């Protein structure tokens, strides 16, 4: 039709590889590629591949203690950075996320959280009143969870070098008898979900954009370590646990399916989504399975212990909405499928990059 700027050849669509895109932080496929291609290879002197997990188990050698040797044990260790915008949203704030997020990362490894560290990166000009509010939220969340903040750091950067406040928390815990891991998942496992999906992501998005939805959507941010402890006591054969944060349930289940080399079959009718959340997702053209959560977990449990696991989760307020949503299967390894309401089967892909609302 016309000459192109590159002459006779047809230009291949450009794909950005030299700069970081916002989508690289979405928790989806772009994030995974960044970790795999750029970050992990540079850190390979440690445990290869280990940093792709949200928390690590560290074996602690036996140590002399006042002359008599003390036996070794194992610790679980995790770190997380929090950069949410807006920092305050219905149901919580960045302070709640920083405490609960790291506690949940420890809990998903079967860890009992012992203590957290907290670092602030604060932008010049932030109202001290906001710092007070965020810090009060951190204090409240830590007290509620029963996990103290024991060390920390504060840095201030020039105006424009950060957006208000960023928080970084690290946590340590001790592992229990059960060591959940994605690689342990087996065909036949029941897939259990502790509560409705997509509340956090939609709460933050509606606070950011001020859509004026009739029903307020609250973030689900909550510490899950107590519920997880009860779950593991009731169902000690539990194979894996995951909190589906950025990238949503779809991305978390795809990671598990890929790691374990199994397939996952879900039942769409069983997937809990609160009605205002579903309506908001519909309006924006977002898949609730791609939207972030901060207070739910998914558990792969052998079928024989599934009802005990569900009962244990439901006995806790944070797990009162626990349901079975599907099962692990030997078919289609690495793939997650969902049986639709109409009764056909569709593959559930992980989130790719940034979540983009569609036009109409």
């Amino acid at each position, binding site marked *: *039709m*016309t*000459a*192109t*700027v590159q002459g006779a050849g*047809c*230009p*291949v*669509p*450009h*794909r*950005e590889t030299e*700069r*970081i*895109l*916002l*989508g690289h932080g979405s928790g989806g*496929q*772009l994030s995974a590629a960044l970790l795999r291609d750029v970050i992990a290879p540079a850190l390979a002197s440690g445990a290869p591949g280990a940093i792709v997990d949200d928390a690590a188990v560290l074996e602690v050698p036996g140590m002399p203690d006042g002359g008599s040797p003390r036996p070794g044990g194992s610790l679980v260790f995790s770190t997380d950075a929090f950069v949410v915008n807006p920092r305050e949203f219905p149901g919580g704030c960045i302070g709640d996320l920083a405490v609960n997020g790291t506690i949940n990362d420890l809990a998903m490894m079967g860890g009992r959280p012992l203590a957290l560290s907290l670092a602030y990166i604060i932008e010049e000009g932030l109202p001290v009143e906001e710092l007070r509010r965020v810090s009060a939220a951190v204090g409240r969340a830590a007290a509620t969870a029963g996990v103290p903040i024991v060390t920390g750091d504060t840095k201030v950067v020039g105006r424009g070098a950060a957006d208000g406040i960023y928080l970084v928390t690290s946590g340590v815990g001790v592992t229990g008898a059960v060591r959940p891991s994605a690689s342990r998942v087996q065909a036949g496992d029941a897939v259990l979900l502790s509560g409705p999906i997509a509340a956090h992501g939609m709460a933050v998005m509606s606070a950011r*954009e001020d*859509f004026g939805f*009739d*029903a307020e959507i609250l973030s689900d941010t909550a510490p899950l370590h107590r519920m997880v402890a009860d779950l593991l006591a009731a169902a000690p054969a539990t194979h894996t646990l995951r909190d589906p944060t950025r990238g949503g349930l779809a991305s978390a289940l795809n990671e598990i399916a890929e790691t374990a080399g199994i397939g996952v079959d879900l039942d769409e*009718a069983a997937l809990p989504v609160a*009605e*205002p959340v*579903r*309506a908001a997702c*519909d309006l*924006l*053209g977002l898949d609730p399975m791609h939207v972030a959560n901060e207070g739910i977990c998914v558990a792969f449990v052998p079928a024989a212990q599934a009802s005990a696991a569900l009962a244990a989760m439901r006995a806790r307020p944070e797990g009162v909405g626990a349901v079975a949503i599907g099962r692990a299967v030997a078919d289609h390894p690495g*793939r997650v*499928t969902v049986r*639709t*309401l*109409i*009764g*056909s*089967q*569709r*593959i*559930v*892909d992980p989130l*790719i*990059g*940034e*979540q*983009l*609302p*569609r*036009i*109409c």
Partner: protein
Amino acid sequence: MKYLAEYRDPGLARAALAELRRIATKPWSIMEVCGGQTNTMVRQGIDEVLPAGIRMIHGPGCPVCVTPLEQIDRALAIAARPEVIFTSYGDMLRVPGSQTDLLSLRARGATVRVVYSPLQAVELAAANPDRQVVFFAIGFETTAPANAMSVLRAAELGLDNYSVLVSHVLVPPAMRAILASPDNEVQAFLAAGHVCAVMGYTEYEPIAATYQVPIVVTGFEPLDLLDGILHAVRQLESGRTEVENAYARAVARDGNPAAQKVVATVFEVCDRAWRGIGVIPDSGLGLREAYAAFDAERRFAVSQVTAQEHPACIAGSIMRGSRLPTDCSAYATQCTPRSPLGAPMVSTEGTCAAFFAAGRRSPSSLVPAPTAAVQPVPGSRESQS
């Protein structure tokens, strides 16, 4: 919002499917026009559970997909300018132009903002008098009223730093182009419910009469689609060719006259190029001369930008309904939502992206593709390549 559950009820869906099986005695090909309907169709797998012989053809109704590559390159040229705040609906950001996309431009320093309404873009213009705010006004009749309203609002505020890059398209001319093609296989249409909510459906009545096709105004939930298909098959089986409204909870026969008035005030009907299809006469909306001051194409002198499609991409055939994504050699290999070669892989409403998201990787689960549903319109890109 409780109504949503009622239109997704599995029991009612099974009943509708049973009724379809009962009444369908012949094979029928039905096109759903709107990308939103394609998305529901593929996500729910509705086309896979229909009675054998009832074939859904996915129409050209994804506004992102039909926006020509030239127009995307124009958007990119404008967005790259330092004085510009470029605003768009979210799913345009990932659409590749010839060289780059809006997300990548943003990573390289351009100011690109997702807005949920063009009135937000007008607010941005009012708040940033030293910047030029441009809104990418694409879409069908559905988005035209809000986009027109933004121009009226900017005029009312006396803003000289707001403009719109217009690529509006209209549904009825596209339906006529499909039906007028000698190879057309479409025997009935599900008309796009939200377009009809704005425009009404009187303009479909002459199409149904001229081309002897049933046209059913249809919604977007699974049961809406099944109901639309049921209406269409009933008409086909009984030889009727009427316009029926199966989306009465949202659509009135005359649509929304207030919205139509706003559109008519700001826009006029013009010829428009459709990506993959070519120029369809009188198929788009452009700014009236009285509002030419708000035309970003003139303000930034980008009319001369030209572009060429990727050679492997068969987006044109897919959007004409003559081939399926799984027929494309690049589909799910070279071309994925992460690195799309063509527009239907970008928007969640695009047929290729809908197929990919639903995990359709081979044609085995699908009904046979027709040879060709629509001829390329003379002057289109594909016909000359």
